[in-house]
């Protein structure tokens, strides 16, 4: 199942600030990056101004393998309670990445009936608009 966007309704944009700019910018180059503390090595998502473990403030970004497993999901079925710019049904997933962080995204290429917790997935990049590339997930064979 592929997501269908409705012409004329813009996709909602992330709010980009000092802390998360690198995360969103990397998608334009087809990269998924996470924040990793240079001092203690802790990888975190979402981005934040300092490491919650050692309070180090030097920013450091590492490229993700893009591999993970589905942790939870929901399928939007009712158009009036969904984002009007996307046709229902569409699937939102939480993915546990091999780097040890969890991220939220869409799942494509899988029917809602076939999703299960623990399903292996990998990232791909979808240019949904002129200035917006979103990291999304598709099923991967183990």
């Amino acid at each position, binding site marked *: 199942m592929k997501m269908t966007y409705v012409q004329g*309704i*813009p*996709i*909602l*944009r*992330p*709010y*980009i*600030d000092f*802390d*998360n700019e690198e995360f969103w910018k990397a998608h334009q180059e087809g990269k998924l990056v996470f924040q990793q503390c240079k001092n203690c090595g802790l990888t975190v*998502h*979402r981005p934040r101004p300092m490491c919650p473990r050692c309070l180090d403030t030097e920013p450091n970004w590492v490229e993700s393998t893009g591999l993970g497993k589905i*942790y*939870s*999901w*929901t*399928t*939007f*079925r*009712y158009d*009036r*309670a*969904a*984002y*009007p*710019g*996307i046709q229902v049904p*569409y699937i*939102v997933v*939480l993915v546990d990445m091999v780097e040890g*962080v*969890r*991220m*939220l*995204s*869409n799942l494509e290429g899988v029917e*809602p009936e076939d999703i299960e*917790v623990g399903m292996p997935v990998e990232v791909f990049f979808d240019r*949904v608009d002129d200035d*917006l590339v*979103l990291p999304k997930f598709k099923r991967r064979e183990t």
Partner: protein
Amino acid sequence: MFDQYLARKYQTTQRPAPEANLIKEKTAIVGIGATEFSKNSGRSEMQMASEAILAAVEDAGLKIEDIDGLVKFAMDYTDEMHLVSTLGIPDLKYFAECGWGGGASCSTIAHAAAAVATGAANYVVCYRGMNERSGNRYGRVPGVERVMASPNDHYGYIMPYGLAVPPSWVAMFTTRYMHEYGATAEQLGWVSIVLRENACRNPKAIFYDKPATIDDYMASKMIAEPLRLFDCCVDTDGGCAIVVTTAERAKDLKQTPAIIMGATQGIAEQGEMMTSYYRPKISCLPESWYAGQELWHITGVTPKDIDVVQFYDAFTPLIPMQLEEYGFVELGEGCVYCDGGERIRPDGELPCNTSGGHLSEAYLHGMNLINEAVRQIRGTSTNQVQDVELSMVTGGLGVPTSALLLRR
């Protein structure tokens, strides 16, 4: 801090001793009021709030001039400056605002009780006025420009993917909850149906005299899987208000006071407004566990002592999850407890949401639940539980929350 939650070890030694709590037994709810609940009030939120406040003040046997404190929700657009002018309150000494949407409901009582216990004010009104059905409906995406401009950073990580409304935010927790504990749609359905039964006996409820069966539940349309329409609360226009004073002053007032045993708040690590997805575990409500632990600590009461409870029920799964977090059942047993509905009916082991709750009476951000908890103390509910001594209420979920315990 999250490790503490996962280990279920509440550090009571770091807490003030229960006997140091100035709210406990020394404060009371003495007035409740509400407008009608509808799908289109035809008047402003300011008017809804004002009407509810006047009703609560009259219920208490007070005059508006007696009111010297107001506690509002942060997510409410009827501010105290305008209310003072509208209601002609001459001498407001204390005003406060409680955050986090419906998580504020019992928090407002905690703040009001603290004000009267410390002498900052004598009679404090907590209120909420909302045209949540005819105005800005939470169940609908509020509009593309508005959300795009939001400085709420976390929206940026959910909105581009279309995760745009509360049912979908809670659906993500629910999928995981059902996966981990084997909970079924029918079990969630019984929560919805029992509350509908209660609403059918409550003439003020939106779903008064509109019975539904478990088959109707299963056939109701899927909103954001696994949540169906009947899993979701009813968007409502209305207003509610509650008057708080000291237990001493309550003796001279019109109504049987609902004595405040405890009013507590809870917050947990790695939280996000309704989308706390980055925690090690999401099939749970850690904020509620904290609010509950503090409530039991202060009051010395245990879950088995509770006679009736109004759980914040924006969505059905939140009732079984709160049964677990407040310690009425073990983790993962909440849905089994609700199965078939017997235990949570007004004549069951633990009567829940006797007015019909948010699912079937009205969605007033928790304030109609407090009103019903007070009615259970007074003996005036349309689903009155026999011999109520202890009546409990909880605040909104997936956000920093609150809890309240009342006694006769």
